[in-house]
């Protein structure tokens, strides 16, 4: 590339870097549109709920025989399959046009200290749906009531690491720079 060519690009860049003035009315329009959205819930009101959740989720020592352990594992696996709709079984809620159904989300994260479920259903707020470690092991779980619709979601590990659900379809229309998955809840 010649020196002249380099000079042309430098002049182009210099021209394109000049400041641009955008109509400040854009600010007003943005704030008006935001004002029409549902009020965002502050995190402060959730403190009591979090304390209660921590009490419920506090690890407790339980003694089990190996056979009982296997039995619990089998029941847990069946529950996951049934609730996620991958196993034919009775519906978890009465059929209805906009009935809420409970969905269990599960992820294996043996080394995590905490895992949150975040998604369209909780405004992607990591404080709202902390996941519970199952039996002090590697599996984390959360149950969320969902109305029929399509939801994007992900897992947030230790408040920093973003994880899509490896067992669910990836969200292709995501534009927020982090991987996410999609769950579709049917109307019956």
């Amino acid at each position: 590339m010649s020196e002249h060519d380099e000079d042309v690009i430098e002049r182009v860049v210099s021209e394109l870097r000049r400041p641009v003035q955008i109509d400040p009315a854009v600010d007003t329009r943005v704030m008006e549109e935001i004002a029409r959205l549902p009020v965002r819930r502050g995190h402060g009101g959730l403190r009591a709920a979090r304390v209660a959740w921590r009490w419920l989720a506090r690890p407790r020592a339980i003694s089990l025989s190996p056979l009982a352990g296997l039995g619990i594992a089998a029941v847990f696996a069946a529950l996951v399959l049934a609730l996620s709709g991958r196993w034919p079984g009775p519906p978890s809620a009465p059929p209805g046009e906009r009935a809420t159904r409970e969905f269990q989300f599960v992820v294996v994260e043996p080394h995590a200290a905490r895992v949150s479920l975040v998604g369209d259903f909780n405004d992607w707020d990591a404080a709202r749906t902390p996941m519970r470690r199952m039996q002090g092991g590697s599996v984390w779980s959360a149950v969320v009531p969902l109305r029929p619709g399509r939801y994007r979601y992900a897992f947030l590990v230790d408040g920093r690491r973003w994880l899509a659900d490896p067992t669910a379809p990836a969200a292709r229309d995501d534009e927020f720079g982090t991987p996410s998955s999609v769950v579709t809840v049917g109307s019956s």
Partner: protein
Amino acid sequence: MGIDKVETSDADLVRRVLDGDTRAYAGLVARYRDRLGRYAMHMLGNREDAEEALQDAFVRGYRSLARCYEPERFGAWLYGILVNRCRTTGARATRRGRLFVRDEGALNGFAHPSGAERTEWEDAVHRALARLAPEYREAFLLKHVEDLEYETMARLTGAGVSALKMRVKRAREQLQVILREAERV
């Protein structure tokens, strides 16, 4: 004696919004309006479309603010949303058959240091940019005008680093060819 103006950080404003102070978002909008607007104007070449994409990006940013897990990097995060909005708006404009119709209003939005009339060179630059394929224009603007690293560009655009390097290279080559032609005329 001067008065030191201490600017509230992006992270503080984001936290205030997440705690329910919607008005704090206006500070973020005012802070990023012109810089992001410049990208949208260059990318779409039309003030109306640029402002629509910008407004849409700010509103989407607000609705998904809880997903901004590095609030100190709010600007970079919002950039990703705007890049996506510009793609959508650009595609829609193509369908409407009005891609890159530069109107005088759009051209006048570019501040000129001397207040002088736009020169032929300036017009030539914007016309040359308009002739690039959108993905070349996007890569060139992010690399050379917004001064982003290739890794950041890859995160924003979803394209690989080598693909982005190729797009920037071709954009540069095409701009040189187009502007050389313009000089001859």
